[in-house]
């Protein structure tokens, strides 16, 4: 059975272009041009109750003629965990961080390429699966192996020694591999709520992790920076 996708986008050209491209990729695509239409398609009951999700993934534009796409995200997240990818022309980091913290799975700034969109969707769909199955405890990429269950990290077969904080930070990124984790999420999960303002901790520990895990820290391949938003561990399948 093909995956059901809801595309909420008010621009006709972009909507039909994306629709065609996603149909080619084998998705079953339903489109909505406004917030009202999207909510109607979802069905009020399905939106606000923890029933079987009507869609497998949602692509959501923010500036819609009858409201902000972010409202739909907030409504949806009260009960459901359907992956939501924001597609917007707004590139202010503040907005990105806000929506990611509110539960968006990813945020793509227009214009973006189809390849980029498909990659982000794949990651989002895989993480949705994680909530049903056991969480990711193992990450392999090139010569790097991270085994969360056994607290072991090895590179080219040699064990890499990490401090407890470094390990916790890496583990948080592994659990969301391929997805952006905002500074806020990292600081709260690794250090605690009271360290929200201490972004310089992240700079320091991410630098240490890159020194231990990257071939060339000046050109990282695994521990990627999303300027002003957060960090992303390279997806294992890309």
């Amino acid at each position, binding site marked *: 059975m093909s995956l059901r996708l809801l595309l909420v986008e008010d621009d006709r050209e972009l909507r039909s272009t994306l629709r065609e491209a996603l149909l080619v990729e084998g998705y079953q695509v339903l489109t909505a041009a406004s917030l009202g239409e999207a909510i109607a398609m979802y069905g009020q009951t399905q939106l606000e109750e923890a029933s079987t999700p009507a869609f497998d993934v949602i692509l959501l534009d923010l500036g819609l003629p009858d409201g902000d796409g972010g409202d739909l995200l907030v409504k949806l997240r009260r009960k459901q965990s359907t992956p939501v990818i924001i597609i917007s022309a707004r*590139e202010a980091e503040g907005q990105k961080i806000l929506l990611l913290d509110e539960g968006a799975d990813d945020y793509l700034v227009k214009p973006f390429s189809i390849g980029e969109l498909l990659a982000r969707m794949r990651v989002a769909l895989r993480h949705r699966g994680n909530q049903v199955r056991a969480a990711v405890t193992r990450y392999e990429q090139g010569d790097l192996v991270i085994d969360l269950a056994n607290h072991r990290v090895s590179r080219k077969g040699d064990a890499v020694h990490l401090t407890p904080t470094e390990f916790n930070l890496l583990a948080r990124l592994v659990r969301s591999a391929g997805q952006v984790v905002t500074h806020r999420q990292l600081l709260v999960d690794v250090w605690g709520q009271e360290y929200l303002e201490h972004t*310089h901790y992240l700079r320091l520990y991410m630098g240490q992790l890159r020194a231990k895990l990257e071939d060339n*820290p*000046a*050109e*990282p391949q695994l521990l990627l*920076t*999303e300027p*002003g938003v957060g960090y992303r561990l390279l997806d294992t399948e890309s």
Partner: protein
Amino acid sequence: MNPLTSSQQLLRYSIGLTIWLMGWCLLLFFDTHFDLVNLSLILVLTSAIAALWLPLSVTLLASLVGLMAFNWSFVPPRGTFAIDLHQHTVLLVAMMLVNIIIAGLMVFLREQSRRAQAYAHAAEELRMWGDKLRDADEPGLLLDDLHQALGRLSGGMDSQHPVALVALRGQLPPTNLSSALQRIGSVNPEQEEALWHCLRSGQALGPGTGRYQELDALYLPLRGLSITSGAAMISGIINADEFPALTQARALCDQMGAALERHHIQQQERQARDQAQAQIVRNTLLAAISHDYRTPLATIMGAASSLDQQSERLTDSQRQQLARSIVDEADRLRRLTSNVLQLARLDAIAGKIQGDWESAEEIVGNVMRRMRSHDPQQRLSAKLESDLPLLWGDSLLLSQLLENLIDNSLKYSPPESPIHVSAYVDKHHLVLAVRDQGTGIAAADYEQIFEVFQRGDHRKPGGADGTGIGLALCRAIARAHGGELEFHATATGASFECHLPLRAQPVNPESHL
């Protein structure tokens, strides 16, 4: 002007009376030595000298009393007011007339000199006031001074003689709006109404002005040549024949009005000039932007219309090629749009960025990863000093700066020549540098590229392909971080360096954990 205070008056009376006393002492002393005519001259002298200090009425009274006493004491038969000889009558009458004339002349003279002094003082006050207003950048701040000067004119600022000033903050509102006025001194609603009337009509009201004579206070406009910027209310200034205080008050107010008007006109001029300058810069920017947009748009249009209209005659690889160029050029447009947007944003926030602790390693790493897709020949390499301090700034802006510099080098250095990106500490600055083996941009063009957007020079709207906007943005970003973008052309190539000031580093987390 100069109303005598009671202590001054007392002093004058006592001097006058002392002189009379001394005169009488002399008379009594010389009584037996001199004859009557000589004694009478002493009396005339005393009266004349005392007139220098005493007011006219007192002088005349003193003369009369003195004459009667002289008659009593010295004119035979002594001890009575009777006069023996006719010649003594002539003497006394002549003495009285001389006394009156002298006293009158003295008082007149004194009054003349007092007036002259007062006029000189008033003229001096006006001159100083004029100087003060001329030197003031903001004449509105001198309203307090004017208030005090008018207060002195009205005979001290007590509750019986209130003085109030109002000045317009901006444009004259269509209705009497209290908040539109800057005010000194308090007024009742009636006075407020009169002040507004005076302000709107630009004419003086109240006693001595010929308009609304029945008002109990004087209202003067602060009036320039064409606009009235405020009004003053002065009470207790009505003694117009004593001294023309009204004229003085008017002159002070007129000077203030002229200064306020001059300031207003200067402000308008400056605003107009700023607006014109901003308009020129905007036009230049728009010209540059539309020029820079045309090139990628032309490529996209060409490729897309070719795919649209000639599709069946193209080979697969040709179609692929066209599609690829559409993607590339669209990406260029994206970058250009982002540059224009950031430039406008930096302008709007006047260079006040929202900073955070950022790592140069992450900024370089992020940009390197993104630029790799534009670097199929692997020309880029990055080298970072170890243990670089953290930067305080906006990572998105700094990434954009570095991306623009690398993009610039990729375009303007010889194909396949290497490009080095580096970050290092130089004294109190962290330097992000991009070095290539090209000639870069000729040094002369460099300044022009930067200045073009600031001066509003139409001659050369940036280099090709948005270089101008890109570099202008780089410099704006560097400056917003308190740093500077520098260009160095060397024998082996060109380098763009962004010098960013270092701050005291945040506390190391190890001390907490």
